[in-house]
């Protein structure tokens, strides 16, 4: 068991180290988040709608689109010089590779999600709401469900001719639960409603994340086999 966790950690650390040195994906996603917030500001008429009313939805749309940018490139660097073959041939079970990749994507996307929330607070003067820890939990579970399916389908789409263009078509229909429960919980927490109102949403986000991680770990080996 600890050997297995070590393997997951090694894969995740390798990806995060690469990211630490190149800073490609996190900078791209972070810049996207800030710029999207700027565009949102000019796309809504503040005399008609208050940014607080639609903030939760915009936060989640920014996370999903920005996340797609980073998750889509999960296998990019490795595909370029055949390094993925090396990783796949190493004596690490395929599901550990999947879990490691998901973990590193999760760390990146979670950093970006917190940045998105911070940017919206700053730009639109929104308050952190009832319970910042619950908000952080909702973001974490939503991000986990997203990256688990995202990593699986990034492996699928990078094996096709269409590449990353295919990813949103495969991913968006499946992400409705993340948006519904995530944006629902975020909206309520930001507008100061009690924590008891979002417990159901949080549970559903956790169940979805569990399903996504389990499905990905089982199915990943069928995607990468050759």
């Amino acid at each position: 068991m600890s050997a297995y966790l070590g393997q997951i950690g090694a894969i995740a650390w390798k990806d995060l180290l690469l990211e630490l040195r190149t800073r490609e994906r996190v900078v791209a996603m972070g810049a996207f988040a800030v710029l999207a917030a700027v565009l949102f500001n000019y796309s809504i008429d503040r005399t008609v709608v208050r940014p607080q009313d639609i903030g939760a939805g915009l936060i989640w749309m920014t996370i999903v689109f920005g996340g797609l940018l980073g998750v889509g490139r999960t296998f990019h660097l490795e595909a370029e010089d055949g390094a993925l073959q090396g990783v796949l041939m190493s004596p690490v079970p395929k599901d550990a590779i999947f879990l490691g990749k998901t973990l590193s994507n999760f760390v990146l996307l979670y950093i970006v999600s917190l940045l998105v929330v911070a940017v919206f607070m700053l730009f639109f003067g929104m308050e952190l709401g009832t319970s910042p820890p619950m908000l952080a939990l909702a973001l974490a579970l939503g991000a986990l469900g997203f990256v688990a399916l995202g990593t699986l389908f990034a492996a699928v789409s990078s094996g096709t001719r269409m590449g990353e263009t295919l990813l949103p078509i495969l991913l968006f229909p499946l992400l409705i639960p993340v948006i519904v429960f995530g944006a629902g919980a975020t909206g309520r927490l930001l507008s100061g409603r009690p924590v008891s109102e979002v417990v159901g949403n949080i549970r559903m986000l956790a169940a979805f994340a569990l399903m996504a991680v389990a499905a990905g770990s089982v199915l990943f080996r069928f995607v990468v086999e050759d």
Partner: protein
Amino acid sequence: MSGKGMRLTGTALAGLGLLGMLLVYSLSFFWVSTELSQGVAQRIFYVHVPAAWTTFLAFGIAAFTSGMYLWLRDERLDRAALAAAEGGMIFATIMLTTGPLWGKIAWGTYWTWDPRLTSTLLMWFIFLGYFMVRNSTENPEKGKRFAAVVAIVGALDIPFIHLSVVWFRSLHPDPIVLKPDRPSLPADMLIVLLTSVLSFTMIFLGLFLLRYALETLRAGQQARAREATA
């Protein structure tokens, strides 16, 4: 079943189903009583509900045979998944076109973000992803595996999608036949509905067999072409 037997059975089933549809149309236009509150528009129900049932049947077959394909790697299972997914997409399209036509009259709007409407629309897109993935790989075997993964994840996700959109308020009429106590539909309406469900299922199974036989022929032809070049 041999290829020829399958084509004959498929043609017979689809033909019987089409005859059944003629019966359903005549019954629903001239025989069955008109529903009190919705009027004539309710009659589209005899096409809409069977199409919905067939879509779910097709999705179930596609997901199940996809899972079995990944496990056993039998080409026949992949052909069955493809044939079911194509049928499912046709019937999902029927459901998505008849629904809004009725909705415009009954609800006053073509589209609402109702759970059942939303889940069906997303199911249609999952089918679309299935075909796009399948057709965009250099190596056909890879495309089959990818498509199977899409079908399985789609089937696992559908309950979550449905639950999540139920979180929003629902406008769609509640189930009236498949519910815990007895169906609350008058006898004549139930007869037409069941005839239509039977006809739709036969048309689907007929198309399924024909599509499957076609795919088998195609695979055989490709194998012969490979042999000839080798």
